[in-house]
């Protein structure tokens, strides 16, 4: 059984405070990069609609690649450590964010873009002041999907010496330490569910604030 004492022991022995920090560090770097790149890609394919299908199809293929295989593919290029893991997170996360950004920008009610242009907003001003804000609920939905992807891939990082909570899981399985697996597994799951829930709340708030009615 998992008693408080067992949990505390596992926690100390496996340096889980440090592992959690590493985990969240990798996660936040990956998610931040994903948001920057994903939104940019979404905006770019919106501005060059002819490229949209090609780019999205390519990202769709990336999406099917098994996550561990993708990290392994990046290993020769980026070496052991956090690099391949973060890069894999980003590669996975571009699609949901870019796709939702693109769909959001395209779906903005025509009356608002018409008015924006008619009262003298340049296309750049209309993009940043009207289209992007009105797309925020959808963009947030994409980010939430990316967040789940990133949590999953970051956990795999333990297998390729990237650190994080995956390391504890790896050691636990290799050394057959049931308690360590349970504690680390439940903790990793809980973190992911909490962050997802938190993102869900933000998404809902944005929906209320910026959604169409």
């Amino acid at each position, binding site marked *: 059984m998992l008693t408080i004492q067992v949990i505390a022991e596992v926690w100390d022995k496996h340096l889980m405070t440090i592992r959690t920090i590493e985990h969240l560090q990798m996660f936040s770097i990956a998610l931040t990069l994903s948001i920057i790149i994903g939104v940019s890609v979404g905006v770019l394919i919106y501005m060059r609609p002819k490229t949209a299908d090609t780019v999205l199809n390519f990202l769709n293929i990336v999406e099917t690649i098994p996550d561990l295989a993708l990290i392994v593919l990046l290993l020769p290029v980026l070496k052991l450590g956090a690099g391949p893991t973060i890069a894999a997170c980003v590669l996975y996360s571009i699609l949901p964010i870019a796709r939702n950004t693109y769909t959001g920008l395209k779906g903005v009610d025509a009356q608002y873009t018409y*008015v924006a242009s008619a*009262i003298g907003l340049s296309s750049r001003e209309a993009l940043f002041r009207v289209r992007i804000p009105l797309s925020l609920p959808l963009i947030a939905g994409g980010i939430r999907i990316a967040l789940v992807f990133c949590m999953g891939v970051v956990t795999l990082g333990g297998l390729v010496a990237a650190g994080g909570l995956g390391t504890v899981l790896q050691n636990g399985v290799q050394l057959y330490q049931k308690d360590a697996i349970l504690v680390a597994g439940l903790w990793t799951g809980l973190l992911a569910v909490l962050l997802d829930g938190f993102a869900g709340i933000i998404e809902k708030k944005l929906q209320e604030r910026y959604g169409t*009615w």
Partner: protein
Amino acid sequence: MQNRRLFDRIESIKFKGITKKYGPVYAVKDLDLEVRGGELLILIGPSGSGKTTALRMMNRMIDQDTGSVTINGLDTRDVDPVRLRRNMGYVIQNIGLFPHMTIGENIGLVPKLEGWDKKKIHQRVSNLLDFVSLPPDIFMKRYPRQLSGGQQQRVGLARAMATDPPLFLMDEPFGALDPILRKQLQKEFLKIKNEINRTIIFVTHDIEEALVLGDRIAIMDQGQLVQVGPPEELIFNPASELVSDIVDNQRKYKHMDTLKVKDLMSAYEDKYALDGKTEVCDAVEEMTKRDLETAFVFDGHELLGQVTMVDLMKCRVKAQKLADLARPMKTFQPLDSVAFALSEMKKSGEYIAIVMDPNKPAGILVSDEVLLKLI
């Protein structure tokens, strides 16, 4: 660069030989028209007549195929469209307030893009909201969806006035409002128009609106200009069948003396009535919901008077009851003569009165509407 005004005052706007085709269809054909500085010119015509197309060529939302639009001698095609549009106020029927911005942000958007400082924007927005009878401390921070249709349209007007442009383009701004609200906003708009003294081009399909508001009226049909002139000229010297049709179909009543109030009153609806015991706050909410600018206050069946949204907004004691605020109003009987009713209303400066038969409301008498039915 965009800060500099293209023009401080409009001397004249000239359409010369303007043609616009969509496929084989002419939207506008060989249009020559001059708008004089300071006037309110109405563009009117059936749908598909090209009136809206002509309006949208002025701010280059549509570019003509041939011909030129010049403002004070400046060809619009020589100006960056964004800069051109910043020199004009634009109001449209569906208003298009941005739902993610507060009323204050909506009105202050263009000034902000023009680089005004925060304090100046705030000041300007407050003044404008006051100007359109929406108290700034209540409305500044609200979102468009919290406003009634009439209130939104006022905000639309304030937004167009934000940078104090010399020219306004208005595309059926009151088209989506119910008749009584439309009358009230037209009335307020006339007042505003006289105060700001700007050049306004106003598209409508409603001849009554055109006759009330227009200094001159341009009638368009199938992409071409049929006649342009002041209202009385169109009435007395129509250039064609079409013009007399448009203007004349209002001439149903020739003999005012024989007319009774019941012949010319508008229908009464229950939504206009509020109970005297209602508190001001609730009344504001209720009127917003029902999209009313004016409501009649009753105590049971007894008429106490009228309240307007503007009165309620100005009231500082929120717990006050409508019974205390209601202003007395004219009441008439269905069989009173219209001439008598109109002169009574004119004397007291009222433009709206209620018709009682004998103790319950039977209709509403709106002076403008009555006049128009008499033309």
